[in-house]
């Protein structure tokens, strides 16, 4: 069950909201949300839910003692459990395949038993939350150990469980502690609905439409014309953005329904002036996680080039178990390091040119996200006019959808819309009517909506 699903929107979510505020005693809300979150996750598989619960119990059991503070061994043990699960489920096949490819093991692959391992949804996200908790306990940033159920809810809370944002415990501690006293106002409820509607809209109407247009086009990237290649580059840039941004908006809205205020995960990333700025705006929670728990412990700017290579390589690997993801990460590392080298020159360029240049570089990078090396190369050649042009080019309406996506990406500001003052009756009503119409339009297409791209990370 995913957010863009009738069952979630019209059965699961209303049932949880009604139970939370009308059926269950306020003191039991935390337990209800925990149970609902585990139920939600169990739809992706009981085995995966057991992995999640085992990770929660493991980390909690080791971190509960204050002895973890400054104790590297305890920290290692706490982290190794969830990290091992992550490695097994996400990276083991990749590691073995890579080892096999680089060795002379012969034609027969000896480790086929790992090929049918199904990746638990969102394992990279909740593993990072567990690790951040353990490190914060080690550093003494979390002095008082929360009750087990609060910790379990922090890790497994269903709005952010499978695709973030990657939260620190202090982001949600207050909301969890305050659950029994939280009474949503009409504005809280309205803001939550607005976030959810905007999130669904960009996912279902924009990201999925672009995906449907591109699916037949990208089957043979070497057969594209220049226009077709350009469409794929631009289309995928907007698709992945609206797919993930849409999820984050929905997650923020769902959190608001229960008094949680998740931080924004996207700060208009395609309006970034340079590659460094881009990473302060794209998947912000991951960027800051990597900065605080990897980059700074590695020494930060002291060994700049090496540390940038490490953190961006790791960032790429976090996204996917494949060399194309690693190279994608390193590509961004080179962009960031390269920008640092030419910043005095770059920063003097007109802002529009900076943004255009940055957007182009980022968009070309997504090719490594979408394709393997061979297909990415084929598409790149198509962009240079070397494609066979046999695949039908996108038609007029396809370009209109792309332009609409671009216009919304650069023109709309949903966060500002949600926070706008609607105390004047007319504005509030008009806003409600517009959102009601958008929600209806979204529902018409929701049955053909696809899984969120970031679920597989």
């Amino acid at each position, binding site marked *: 069950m995913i957010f863009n699903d*009738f069952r979630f929107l019209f059965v699961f979510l209303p049932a949880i909201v009604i139970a939370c505020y009308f059926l269950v005693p306020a003191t039991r809300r935390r337990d209800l949300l925990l149970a609902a979150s585990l139920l939600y996750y169990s739809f992706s598989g009981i085995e995966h839910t057991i992995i999640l619960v085992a990770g929660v119990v493991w980390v909690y059991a080791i971190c509960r003692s204050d002895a973890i503070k400054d104790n590297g061994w305890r920290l290692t043990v706490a982290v190794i459990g969830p990290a091992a699960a992550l490695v097994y489920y996400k990276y083991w096949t990749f590691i073995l395949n890579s080892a096999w490819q680089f060795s002379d093991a012969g034609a027969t692959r000896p480790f086929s038993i790992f090929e049918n391992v199904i990746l638990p949804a969102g394992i990279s996200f909740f593993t990072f939350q567990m690790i951040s908790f353990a490190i914060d306990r080690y550093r003494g940033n979390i002095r008082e150990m929360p009750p087990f159920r609060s910790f379990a809810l922090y890790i497994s809370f269903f709005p952010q469980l499978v695709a973030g944002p990657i939260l620190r415990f202090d982001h949600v501690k207050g909301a969890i502690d305050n659950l029994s006293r939280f009474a949503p106002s009409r504005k809280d409820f309205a803001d939550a609905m607005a976030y959810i509607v905007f999130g669904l809209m960009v996912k279902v109407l924009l990201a999925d439409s672009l995906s449907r247009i591109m699916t037949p086009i990208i089957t043979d990237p070497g057969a594209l014309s220049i226009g077709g290649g350009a469409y794929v580059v631009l289309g995928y840039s907007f698709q992945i953005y609206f797919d993930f941004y849409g999820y984050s908006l929905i997650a923020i809205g769902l959190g608001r329904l229960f008094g949680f205020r998740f931080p924004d995960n996207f700060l208009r990333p395609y309006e970034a002036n340079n590659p460094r700025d881009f990473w302060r705006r794209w998947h912000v929670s991951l960027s800051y996680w990597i900065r605080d728990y990897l980059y700074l412990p590695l020494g930060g700017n002291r060994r700049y080039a090496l540390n940038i290579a490490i953190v961006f390589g790791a960032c790429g690997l976090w996204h996917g178990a494949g060399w194309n993801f690693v190279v994608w990460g390193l590509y961004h590392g080179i962009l960031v390091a390269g920008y640092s080298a030419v910043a005095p020159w770059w920063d003097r360029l007109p802002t529009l040119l900076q943004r255009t240049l940055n957007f182009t570089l980022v968009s070309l990078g997504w090719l490594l996200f979408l394709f393997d090396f061979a297909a990415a190369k084929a598409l790149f050649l198509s962009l240079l006019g070397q494609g066979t042009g046999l695949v039908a080019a996108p038609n007029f309406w396809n370009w209109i959808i792309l332009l609409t996506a671009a216009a919304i990406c650069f023109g709309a500001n949903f966060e500002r819309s949600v926070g706008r003052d609607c105390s004047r009756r007319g504005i509030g009503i008009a806003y409600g009517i517009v*959102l009601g119409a958008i929600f209806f339009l979204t529902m018409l297409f929701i049955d053909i909506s696809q899984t969120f791209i970031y679920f597989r990370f």
Partner: protein
Amino acid sequence: MRITAFVITFALLALIPVVLKGIPFSRTAFSDIRPDVFKRMTVLHPYDLASVKVNHALSKPRFDVGVFGNSRVVAVGVKHLDIGDRSFFNFAVPGTSLRQSVNLVDELAAHGKAPKLSIISFDNLEIDQYGNAYYPSAFSRWWQAGRDAFWALVNRPGDMLLLAHIVLDHIYAEWEALTDTWNAKSLWARGAIQAPSLVPPLSKPRHAYISDGSRPVKIPQNNSVDRFERPQQRMILLSPYMARDIERLAALDGQSTRILIYETHLETKSASYFDANPSDAVIEKRRQFRTACERFGIACYTAKERPLPENGSPWEDCCHAPADAIGQLISGLVRKHATP
């Protein structure tokens, strides 16, 4: 944002598809329809297709012979039959099960338009996929759901599992019907039939319906069915439904129509595969099928009792026989059972 405005707007807009679904199709849908519009009908939702076919029957004199079923029989048209000058219409709705056929006969009978001979094509019991009906309207389906539950209470008292199964089955079917209502593709397909000049078709289907209700399929002569040696997973039927549906048909048989049921055939390789790997569940289903037919006095033919004539025409796949072979089978049944 005013929540009230949001809710009222959404609720009002959400009602539009519900209302649109309630507007009947043109009563002459199959009579004077344009060929390009016939093509558009292949993407109609099963509810809408059933609705079009029923409306067509209501606008015509009662047919002598009608065939009911799903994709396994939808290709059979007048040109495949040898039934003299008897009138014929194919009421099959692809993607549906026996329950839908029963509902269609029931609905037509209620208007005095059930064909004089209703031939029900019933999925082979090895691959039977039983589901609730899409048509007719929600109120009729809810009434039917209540009667199903009551039937289970009376016939299988104390079997709470069965009752729960039936209730959940209907809830799921109604949920699907509701979500299908809010579906841009369904709405568009409907609009492309209702207002063909205004609404262009969404896709270009390969096949098209024709005026006798059938949807002919061109199968290449060399179509290979090798890959269908192990066709599909066996489906375990909720058996009491079968008896219940046969009982419903029995109530109509002889009153307003003559009912015949035949089990669809499997391509030789698939049939041999199932014969070599018998399943207790299917044997039990077959026994129940036979028992119900005998108990309610319905003429039923299993695939083995009434083999499909071998005429060399290619099969579409493991479970979709050539239309001319089915046509020969049906013609034989008509000659045997229809009044002159």
